[in-house]
């Protein structure tokens, strides 16, 4: 349906730089095992003698646990184990949290969200485990719930009484003379916007298979965690074991994550490991979909925005003032930095020097937040685009012209924000002009979707069409050191020095095997991004060998460095940089081994295209011949690619101030053609135009897949998806009939055009590609809806724009 990049299964000729594979749509090496059903996801990992667990979950949003009676469950003939908070307290530890919070893997004394696990039951299979779980009898004293940020801010009911407040954290950043800008500006535009609670909802739920070995007093835990090398502490600290005793293994494929499995699943790893420890048998637990939706530690941001824009009559934006309240759920977890990542794109694609940014994070009786594709940036982008839309209307100016005149210009690149992150490269005005041109040529013409005659005729039927293009940004490859600012006082941040900054590199290791082939080991899990394929492309070019002679596997958490992994649109930049470095490192090792063998100076040996050659002589060894002379103690070579933002002095100020730095800033200009049926409140996206620039493209088909998939997520967030709750704190979307994912019937045809502006900051020129579509679509769809409804004077202010919300607006404001 879409206009995608050309296919290329054939091996092309090498270009001047010796590249044959990088930049082509080499077919994915991951596909064969997936397509034939052979690949093992977490649910498919089968250890001999494995037992199966089920969880007893709380039916109440907020309640004191009076008693957990396990006697009936334990008397069931198939019951192997019942684990409760009391058992965990006796044998294990709390799970580390954020802002000083710690959590028990099973609810201890009190449940704080509906579906919170209270007990784990282990039996021979999942069916009977669920039978036994039904026999666990828990008595509760039900408490009043806190179900939104406004109720939370009253502090009348406290989530954690010992803290005395539901306000988990707040901060304010002021850049420039904000009050002065608002006093001086010709106009001040105010708005309030709501972002519904959504998340990634991958097709595979979270789970773990744990195997305790009493001989070594250590654990092997197979899991589908994202960032398993980085977040392993959530598991091993819960067990009270050192990191090296808890080996986390990931399968070669995770069935989607989109950020969610950074936090989701850690609890299950810990609980399955505890049960395996108690029973000295392997134990598997994989949540079912209802558990995932109800309480899978998997929700993400839910924000209430209040904004002000200072803008002159001529359209010059003088200042922006944005504050939001975010509903964290019952505990603050790792993904807190979602609150401050938007500082990396503070004014998004616009030049605004004077900005106030404030957040308040509240604890409520809902599922705690995890990360989700976009990581707080889509909400920020949504709020700013909605504000610009309102400003254009109030000033009576053309909304696209208002945007255009305030865009950061290419001659300002690299562009430093007041919040000190730097946009590396790009031409935002050209992108906006091109998307306008595309829409004009194809849709605002006779027979097009926006043919004025057609638009008029459709209005007669109650169908309103419109589009509102905008340029939005995807910050990529962050140095996540700023995450620790949440546990630091202002004085500690003030005293922070450049030497204190953690670097967040990406590691690869490689082994030359006896047959002359190369195995590359990743220290990150993969959930569909094609990491194996991209690494093979780059390594094949770097070593001048065939992709067929390279394979890729995954280090376990005890073997792998602990720095980070696949998140933050990092891997295009970081894995490609690491692959280039690793290939160089391998060449050096090969030359050294050959030199030792030949008794000559390594400088007289050259590695190229799968062989080492002694300069000036006839000596030559293929990699297969060389293998026996290469030291096989440990890996043949390892390489850590330093994050470009860590390496470049331009980013030092931001790093020292613990502000987010993202060295690659990808951008897109998107224009969805929307049609609103005012009789039903239904919004249809008729076609979606996107112009996308993520710098150097490593694999066009993979990038295209990321772009289109990300747009589909943004469509879900804008129109369909929401983890709503009722006043008693009961979740209203616990099935996929209620939490609506985009299907083939409501994702439109996409017309995607690519520009390639290489990043000057990254080794390969690549920028991130995984989040931009999500960030963009969920901002430009609601603004396009407002554009469509302009003749009626109706505006939406809340996503998702569901039919009932839209109908309520139309009833209140028109009829």
């Amino acid at each position, binding site marked *: 349906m879409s206009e995608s990049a050309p*296919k290329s299964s054939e091996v092309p000729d090498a270009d001047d730089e010796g590249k044959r594979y990088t930049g082509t749509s080499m077919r994915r090496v991951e596909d*064969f095992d997936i397509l034939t059903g052979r690949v093992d*996801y977490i649910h498919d990992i089968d250890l001999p003698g494995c037992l199966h667990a089920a969880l007893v979950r709380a039916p109440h949003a907020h309640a004191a646990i009076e008693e957990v009676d396990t006697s009936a469950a334990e008397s069931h003939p198939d019951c192997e184990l019942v684990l409760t908070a009391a058992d965990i307290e006796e044998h294990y530890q709390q799970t580390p949290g954020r802002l000083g919070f710690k959590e028990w893997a099973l609810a201890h004394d009190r449940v704080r969200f509906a579906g919170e696990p209270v007990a784990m039951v282990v039996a021979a299979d999942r069916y009977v485990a669920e039978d036994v779980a039904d026999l666990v009898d828990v008595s509760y004293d039900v408490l009043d719930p806190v179900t939104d940020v406004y109720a939370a801010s009253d502090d009348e009911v406290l989530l954690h009484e010992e803290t005395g407040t539901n306000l988990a954290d707040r901060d304010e950043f002021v850049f420039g003379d904000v009050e002065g800008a608002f006093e001086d500006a010709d106009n001040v535009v105010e708005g309030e916007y709501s972002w519904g609670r959504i998340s990634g909802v991958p*097709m*595979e739920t979270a789970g773990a298979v744990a195997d305790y070995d009493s001989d070594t007093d250590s654990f092997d835990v197979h899991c589908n965690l994202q960032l398993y090398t980085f977040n392993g502490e959530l598991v091993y600290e819960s067990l009270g074991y050192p990191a090296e005793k808890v080996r986390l293994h990931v399968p070669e494929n995770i*069935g989607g994550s989109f950020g969610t499995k950074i936090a989701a699943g850690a609890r299950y790893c810990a609980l399955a490991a505890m049960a395996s420890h108690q029973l000295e048998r392997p134990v598997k637990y994989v949540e079912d979909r209802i558990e995932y939706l109800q309480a899978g530690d998997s929700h993400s941001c839910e924000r209430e925005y209040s904004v002000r824009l200072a803008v002159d009559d001529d359209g010059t934006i003088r200042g922006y003032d944005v504050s939001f309240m975010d509903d964290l759920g019952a505990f603050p977890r790792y993904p807190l930095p979602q609150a401050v990542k938007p500082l990396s794109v503070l004014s998004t694609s616009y030049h605004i020097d004077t900005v106030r940014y404030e957040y308040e994070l509240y604890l409520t009786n809902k599922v705690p937040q995890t990360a989700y594709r976009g990581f707080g940036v889509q909400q920020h982008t949504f709020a700013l685009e909605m504000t610009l839309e309102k400003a254009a209307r109030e000033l009576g100016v053309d909304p696209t012209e208002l945007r255009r005149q305030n865009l950061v210009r290419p001659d300002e690149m690299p562009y430093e924000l007041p919040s000190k992150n730097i946009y590396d490269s790009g031409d935002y005005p050209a992108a906006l002009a091109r998307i306008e041109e595309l829409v004009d040529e194809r849709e605002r013409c006779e027979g097009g979707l926006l043919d004025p005659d057609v638009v008029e005729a459709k209005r007669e039927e109650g169908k309103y069409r419109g589009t509102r293009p905008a340029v939005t940004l995807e910050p990529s490859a962050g140095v996540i050191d700023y995450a620790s600012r949440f546990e630091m006082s202002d004085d500690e941040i003030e005293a922070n020095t450049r030497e204190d900054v953690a670097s967040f590199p990406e590691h690869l290791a490689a082994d030359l095997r006896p047959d002359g082939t190369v195995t590359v080991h990743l220290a990150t899990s993969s959930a569909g991004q094609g990491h194996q394929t991209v690494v093979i492309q780059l390594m094949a070019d770097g070593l001048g060998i065939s992709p067929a002679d390279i394979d890729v596997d995954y280090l376990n958490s005890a073997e792998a460095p602990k720095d980070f992994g696949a998140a933050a649109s990092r891997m295009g930049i970081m894995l490609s940089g690491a692959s280039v470095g690793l290939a160089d490192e391998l060449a050096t090792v090969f030359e050294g081994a050959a030199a030792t063998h030949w008794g000559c100076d390594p400088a007289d040996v050259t590695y190229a295209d799968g062989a080492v050659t002694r300069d000036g002589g006839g000596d030559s060894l293929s990699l297969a011949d060389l293998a026996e002379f290469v030291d096989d103690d440990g890996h043949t070579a390892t390489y850590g690619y330093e994050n470009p933002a860590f390496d470049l002095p331009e980013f030092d100020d931001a790093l020292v101030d613990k502000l987010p730095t993202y060295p690659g800033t990808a951008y897109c200009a998107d224009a969805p053609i929307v049609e609103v049926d005012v009789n039903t409140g239904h919004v249809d996206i008729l076609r979606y135009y996107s112009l996308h620039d993520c710098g150097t493209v490593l694999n066009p088909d993979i990038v295209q897949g990321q772009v*289109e*998939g990300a747009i589909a997520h943004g469509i879900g967030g804008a129109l369909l998806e929401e983890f709503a709750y009722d006043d008693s704190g009961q979740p209203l979307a616990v099935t996929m009939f209620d939490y609506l*994912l985009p299907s083939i019937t409501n994702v439109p*045809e996409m017309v995607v055009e690519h520009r390639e502006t290489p990043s000057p900051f990254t080794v390969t020129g690549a920028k991130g590609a995984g989040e931009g579509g999500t960030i963009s679509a969920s901002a430009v769809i609601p603004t396009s809806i407002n554009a469509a409804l302009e003749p009626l004077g109706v505006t939406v202010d809340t996503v998702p724009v569901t039919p009932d919300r839209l109908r309520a607006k139309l009833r209140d404001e028109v009829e």
Partner: protein
Amino acid sequence: MTEHTTSERPQRDVQLTVNGDAVTSTIEPRTKLSDYLREECNLTGVRVGCEHGVCGACTVLVDGEPVKSCLTYAVQVTDSTVETVEGLSDGSELHPIQEAFHEENALQCGFCTSGFVMSTKALLAEHPDPDDEEIEAGLCGNICRCTGYSPIYDAVYRAADAMEGGD
């Protein structure tokens, strides 16, 4: 699934032809077809994504018809012929539908892929030369969270071309 248990659990016989092989088992009647195929037949290409009939990852063909195996008890389909994704490829030779998904980049994480491939097989059996509307109707019971669907349309068209005249 039952050999480890000690409690009295009801049992029923079920006999199926799965990917061409006759399979006979004694199982609990509450065993879902998805779990039966995954655990008794070791056909873990049958993915379990929602277990309430929305996502379609568990789609298999029962007597040629696409069926959500998570909403079907194995005993309901006794004496039937069941096809799963494992039955499509011939050794290292991919079926044209699988090949088309590969060539069109119509999979990323792959968790939904078995279901899409089986639904596509049923779709093309009914509409060997489908249009967009027929593809939508045939695949609207499968959710893909990664691709945004457009390469899946392309894959179906490519498979239809490749299979012209039957598979």
